[in-house]
């Protein structure tokens, strides 16, 4: 079943599967722009190492803001490329749907009973019809856009605060707001990327179901593997840490002696991002496994089909 909202997550009707993806080019260009921004801050940082006092504090403040903005641009670029992957996945699935009946011929009889089945790629559900999306897929489809948008906004507001901090150094309150806002933004951007990966998993699952259903065979769908469950848990935990560190920095912004709090908030905010990144790695591993399963399923259909 195709939901009306899902139409926005598929290529427009009449999109040519042969065309190069404009999202790929845009993503690469944005990533290189982010690298340039981060490189500018790199030299600013090196200059700061040779300074002292207010000059150094001022330089360190703006370089922090600019570097994090550079990271945010590259992460946005990653999101743009992932969007391009989603669109191309559908076009590839259309090609398979069009071609598979000729490659398979008459599908062979499948005595596998409905229910769960063990395969070299883990447990799969065998059903007559393609199953609908899982709750996490529904959430991912809705959330990736707002997460990326809010993340970028938080980073940009943090960048402005970094310039304020640089102009009024030493300004502990501004430093606290800058760090809290920018790492909240980075956490949201990474969560947006994680939701995009969840949307890719949805697209692979839905397209796989549609292809099998169109062929008139039983639908084999991988059950949610441990890597996918851990991905969701790590992403949620990381996002919560990113929100918690932001609250921590707001509290510290009003403190007259924040050195002790800054000492644990720094690693804490980085752990938040680390957890989301660890979740992203598992999402990519899950995508690899699901693709392996789909190639295995297509091969079985071709082997068992009668093309005479």
């Amino acid at each position, binding site marked *: 079943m195709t939901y009306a909202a899902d139409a926005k997550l598929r290529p427009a009707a009449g999109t040519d599967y042969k065309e190069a993806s404009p999202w790929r080019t845009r993503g690469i260009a944005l*990533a290189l722009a982010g690298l340039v921004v981060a490189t500018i801050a790199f030299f600013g940082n090196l200059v700061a190492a040779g300074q002292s006092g207010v000059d150094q504090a001022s330089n360190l403040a703006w370089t922090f803001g600019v570097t994090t903005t550079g990271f945010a641009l590259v992460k946005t670029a990653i999101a743009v490329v992932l969007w391009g992957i989603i669109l191309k996945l559908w076009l590839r699935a259309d090609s398979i749907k069009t071609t598979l009946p000729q*490659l398979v011929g008459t599908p062979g009889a499948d005595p596998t009973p409905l229910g769960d089945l063990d395969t070299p790629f883990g447990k799969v559900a065998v059903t007559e019809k393609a199953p609908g999306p899982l709750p996490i897929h529904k959430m991912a489809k809705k959330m990736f856009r707002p997460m990326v948008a809010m993340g970028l906004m938080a980073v940009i507001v943090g960048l402005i605060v970094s310039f304020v901090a640089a102009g009024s150094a030493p300004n502990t309150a501004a430093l606290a707001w800058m760090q809290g806002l920018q790492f909240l933004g980075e956490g949201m951007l990474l969560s947006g990327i994680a939701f995009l990966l969840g949307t890719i998993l949805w697209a692979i699952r839905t397209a796989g179901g549609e292809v099998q259903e169109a062929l008139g065979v039983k639908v084999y769908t991988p059950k949610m593997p441990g890597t996918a469950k851990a991905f969701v848990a790590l992403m949620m935990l990381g996002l919560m840490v990113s929100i918690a560190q932001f609250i921590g920095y707001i509290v510290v912004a009003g403190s007259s002696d924040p050195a002790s709090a800054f*000492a644990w908030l720094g690693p804490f905010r980085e752990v938040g991002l680390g957890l989301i990144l660890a979740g992203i790695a598992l999402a990519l591993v899950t995508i690899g496994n699901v693709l392996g399963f789909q*190639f295995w399923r297509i091969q079985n259909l071709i082997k068992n089909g009668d093309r005479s």
Partner: protein
Amino acid sequence: MATTSTTSSDFAIDVSKKGLGYNKPQQMGRKLWAPMWVMSIMAFPIALILGIVRSNAIASGEAETTIAALGHTTTGIMFIGFTAVFAAISFAIARILGEFRKGGGEIQELVSSEVRTLKMPPTAKIFILGMAMAMMTLLIASIIHLVVAGQVSSGSLSLADAETAAINLEAVRRLGVSVYLVAITFGLATIIKVLRFQAIRVRELAQVST
């Protein structure tokens, strides 16, 4: 930028009778993503605990050399974690590319077609090169952090020099992270190219099979 490749032969390809299977980086990706992931998951909490210890040291007014050494150690371990998690992500992307290469080859072989395999595109080469450069940058910076921690702790490095080292290393680490993220973008961009190639190639197989 829309190009008009109409057949798979418009791409840079290898033609063979058998599927080519995984290439070297993909084999490496399949083997190494898990140990890298585990290493990152171990490093993050250790660094956090060290950060809390350092925070307590500051609050209780311990020696500045201890505080500086703990700062360098925390950052060194944290960025070993980041190096590992970025490596796990990169290897997982290589693993995805491997599934496309292996699966695509096997299906072409199965329908008695010549096997057309996309040659490694420039984006994939940049991905590997960028990842290697960024990994070395972050790893070296992390090791230097640990060395500086030892030096400041033993008194062979002054507090001022330790602070200068911290700022310089921060600059290097940040650049390393940027390069890593850009490399990952290139790796993902390679997937788009492979998807486009396969969308074209699979339709050609219908003609071969008839």
